[in-house]
């Protein structure tokens, strides 16, 4: 075991590097991912190390990037493309929904689409409009895609490696605000795979269910709650699609109360899904309806107002307070 201090950004960079080194069919491309190393430096050094054929800049067109990736995947490659920011993936939406997600099914499995679409996503970084969208629900609602959202450096490394090796297309959501947090990690230690959630904090009174950028907030809330004498369990969803019903439901059944936390606007979102499916599966274990703490149903706010929009420790604790404790 070799622990080292790494940021999530570095862990992602390492995952790309290791995948490129291991499998000659892996290609990394997108806008500014070459000599610049990406605006978040996730692809730093890759062109220098692997050459412009393996890690390269494209013309500025997201539908083009994803569409070309589909063709590369059809012909034996494993493209890993970067969408510069969440909202700048929208021009590729038709390619994602009508081809990336459907080509395997269309061809009865004869054509696989082993590609990864990396999306630096969500807010909390003081970004201006279009740079902070939580777009996971669009992808999660689209059958044929896997949708992952790591919340720590180890998961970022492990899940990205697995996503690149996967025979299926993966939308890989990277919480921008977690890029720079340093952690002690051992990259050689395997993490739970695609389709697996993780209980990241044990607790007995209620369960917080979160993913991506909301996991640290949920953990903070659990810390504060503990000081107030309430024991909150935290589940990190990790893999939005496929969803780990077993782990999540076992957790909720153990506490009988649940709050789903997510940055995205709440309406018709992944948080809605989690609330609905947990309720379907755990109804008689629930002392209170599953609460959702999500972004408001508004466009992502400007930097000066984003703190009011994002799920906060206080808002999570308010929701926990609402879980009808008097009745149990």
């Amino acid at each position: 075991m070799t622990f080292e201090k790494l940021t999530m950004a570095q862990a992602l960079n390492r995952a790309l590097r290791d995948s490129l080194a291991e499998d000659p069919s892996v290609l990394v491309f997108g806008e500014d991912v070459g000599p610049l190393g990406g605006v978040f430096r996730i692809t730093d050094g890759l062109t220098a190390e692997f050459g412009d054929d393996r890690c390269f800049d494209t013309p500025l067109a997201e539908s083009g990037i994803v569409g070309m990736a589909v063709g590369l995947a059809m012909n034996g490659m494993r493209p890993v493309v970067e969408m510069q920011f969440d909202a700048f993936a929208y021009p590729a939406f038709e390619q994602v929904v009508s081809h990336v997600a459907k080509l395997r099914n269309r061809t009865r499995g004869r054509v696989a689409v082993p590609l990864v679409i990396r999306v630096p996503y969500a807010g909390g970084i003081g970004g201006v409009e279009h740079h902070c969208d939580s777009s996971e629900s669009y992808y999660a609602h689209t059958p044929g895609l896997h949708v992952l959202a790591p919340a720590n450096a180890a998961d970022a490394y492990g899940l990205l490696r697995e996503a690149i090796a996967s025979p299926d297309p993966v939308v890989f959501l990277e919480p921008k605000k977690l890029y720079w947090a340093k952690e002690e990690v051992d990259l050689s230690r395997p993490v739970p795979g695609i389709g697996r959630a993780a209980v990241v904090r044990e607790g007995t009174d209620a369960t917080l269910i979160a993913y991506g950028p909301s996991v640290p907030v949920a953990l903070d809330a659990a810390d504060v709650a503990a000081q107030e004498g309430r024991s909150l369990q935290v589940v990190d969803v990790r893999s939005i699609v496929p969803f780990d019903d077993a782990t999540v439901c076992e957790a909720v059944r153990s506490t009988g109360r649940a709050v789903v936390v997510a940055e995205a606007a709440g309406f018709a979102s992944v948080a809605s899904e989690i609330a609905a499916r947990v309720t379907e599966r755990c109804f008689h274990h629930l002392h209170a309806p599953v609460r959702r703490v999500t972004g408001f149903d508004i466009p992502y706010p400007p930097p000066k107002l984003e703190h009011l929009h994002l799920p906060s420790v206080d808002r999570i604790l308010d929701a926990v307070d609402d879980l009808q404790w008097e009745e149990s």
Partner: protein
Amino acid sequence: MTRDLDLLPSEEPVRLVDPSGTAVTGATVPADDALLTAYAALVVARRLNDQASALVRQGRLAVYPSSHGQEACQVAAALVLGPEDWLFPTYRDTAAIVARGVDPVEVLVLLKGDWHSGYDPVATRVAPQATPLATQLLHAVGVAHAARLKGEQTVVLALCGDGATSEGDFHEALNFAAVFRAPVVFFVQNNEYAISVPLARQTAAPSIAHKGVGYGVPGERVDGNDVAALLTVLGAAVDRARAGEGPQLVEAHTYRMQAHTNADDASRYREDAEVAAWVERDPLTRLEAYLRARGALTDELATSYSEAAEAVAAHTRDGLNRDVEPRPDDLFAHVYAERTPQLAEQAAMLADEIEREAAL
């Protein structure tokens, strides 16, 4: 500054054989053998179009976008490719896929409604027929670029219509192909209409081939009902791409003789007289006249071509008239390499419903 002029198309569409079947003065027409092969394929393509339209009327196909009148383009697109090359067709290019050697019964699976696509794209080197317009052009670039990276000599020929050139993906595909010098021939069948919308509402450009220069891609235009010209122009584009000189844009001037599909009513937007004028430019009669005048096409050969086409039609009919038992589990089997727990649950629910239904 001659570079931009080199990228512009010729003043008139390239034509080698005129509508009466006479070689244009000075033209280098392909050899008779090659044209006889093309003619045989044209006869099959025409017969297939008619057969498929009949199958729609008989309720065996949900819909059929016919390439009647565009068969020269269909056939040439297939014949200029080698076995390792790739073809990227649209919904209208059934005849091209068949000309490439794919079983029409497998090709028509999409329009019959059994599944979204019937043939094996990897084995046949033919992508699934694309419906979302122009999206396939980018896939073509990707396949071509992968071939280049692997050091293969593969060329990709990607088809689209005049209407599809208006989509953003057309732009992005030509640009990506040019920047990466991907070996792609973009072949636009300009049949004058996108469903009801005439070319004049589609673009104000001097021609579609003029769109090439904006990407640094040579544009050429060709008489789309002259298979000799098509074989020559597309063949040269394929050779050029194979030689590593990058993509090319070829526009064929042709005409959609029938409605967009059987569901369409073309009388709402065009005059019969306009259609009639194109009958005279029919690709089959033109080539037939040329080959007969040269003595290359004999009655005997013509009969054998017709018989071969009839055989294809009969095979198509037989195949389409066979009902395929739909397999409910197919719904879940190919969404992912391995089905997710959620899909397994849903498949089990459906299986249970079907079992209970059967038990009634």
